[in-house]
């Protein structure tokens, strides 16, 4: 997998946590994953289409998701479920949107983002098409560990 397509997402995650949350974040791992799933917590999903096609999943343990939304709102109040879902979906929207501008341009074609979707709870398997390569990037932060999974369809290999 070409790093030109991975680094924009690492930079974007770092910028989001640093600037909007005032939180330190560090990439801890990177590797190929078999699927986009995670065992539990929030999975905030957004699709890429156009010059690059794929799926981006921000995987947050419940506690990290809670902490993220509280930091975003500058509030110590425990967010309700709607607010939590809204907050983590906005997080993946900002991360993917910011990365989009840093991705290599292909023939001047633009990239569009879908509206984000959030899945919470246990035991959900997120499948992707067979021609998709999934990269799993692990992070540690002051709010807890989390990961970003990116599934690119084979057009960019």
């Amino acid at each position, binding site marked *: 997998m070409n790093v030109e397509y991975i680094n924009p997402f690492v930079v974007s995650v770092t910028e989001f946590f640093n*600037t909007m949350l005032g939180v330190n974040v560090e990439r801890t791992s990177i590797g190929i994953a078999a699927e986009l799933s995670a065992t539990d917590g929030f999975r905030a999903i957004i699709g890429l289409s156009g010059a690059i096609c794929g799926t981006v999943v921000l995987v947050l343990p419940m506690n990290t998701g809670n902490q993220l939304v509280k930091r975003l*709102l500058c509030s110590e109040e425990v967010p309700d479920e709607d607010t939590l879902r809204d907050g983590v979906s906005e997080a993946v*929207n900002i991360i993917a*949107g*910011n990365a989009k*501008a840093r991705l290599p341009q292909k023939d001047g074609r633009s990239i569009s983002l879908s*509206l984000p979707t959030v899945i919470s709870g246990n035991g959900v398997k997120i499948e992707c098409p067979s021609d998709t390569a999934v990269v799993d990037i692990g992070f540690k932060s002051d709010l807890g560990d989390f990961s970003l999974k990116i599934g690119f369809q084979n057009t960019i290999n």
Partner: protein
Amino acid sequence: MKALVVDDSGVMRKVLIGALKRCEISDVDEAGDGEEAVELAKNTPYEIILMDWNMPKRSGLEAVKTIRGMGKTMPIIMVTTEAEKSRVVDALKAGASNYVIKPFEPSVIVGKIRSALGLE
């Protein structure tokens, strides 16, 4: 002083309302899409609008064009993840007064609001 915050994310609306409060603006209406924003702007004399780009029903860009087409001259600050230069140019051509790219530091949006309203 009355403001309108337009974003399909309720959390982001709260973040932006927090920024307006730091500028001592607490009379704020909210809209979740561009269509609702246009309807509200028709009848209410807002002194500033903070506008997202990608929203259901009508985009922020289309809403800015429509609001300007109604002869409204208040500052409109686009607050969006759309970071490409061409997008910024499109927004300014459509009538946006300023542009803030998400993610932003809270002090940046506060500075842009103050500057747009001549509070500095």
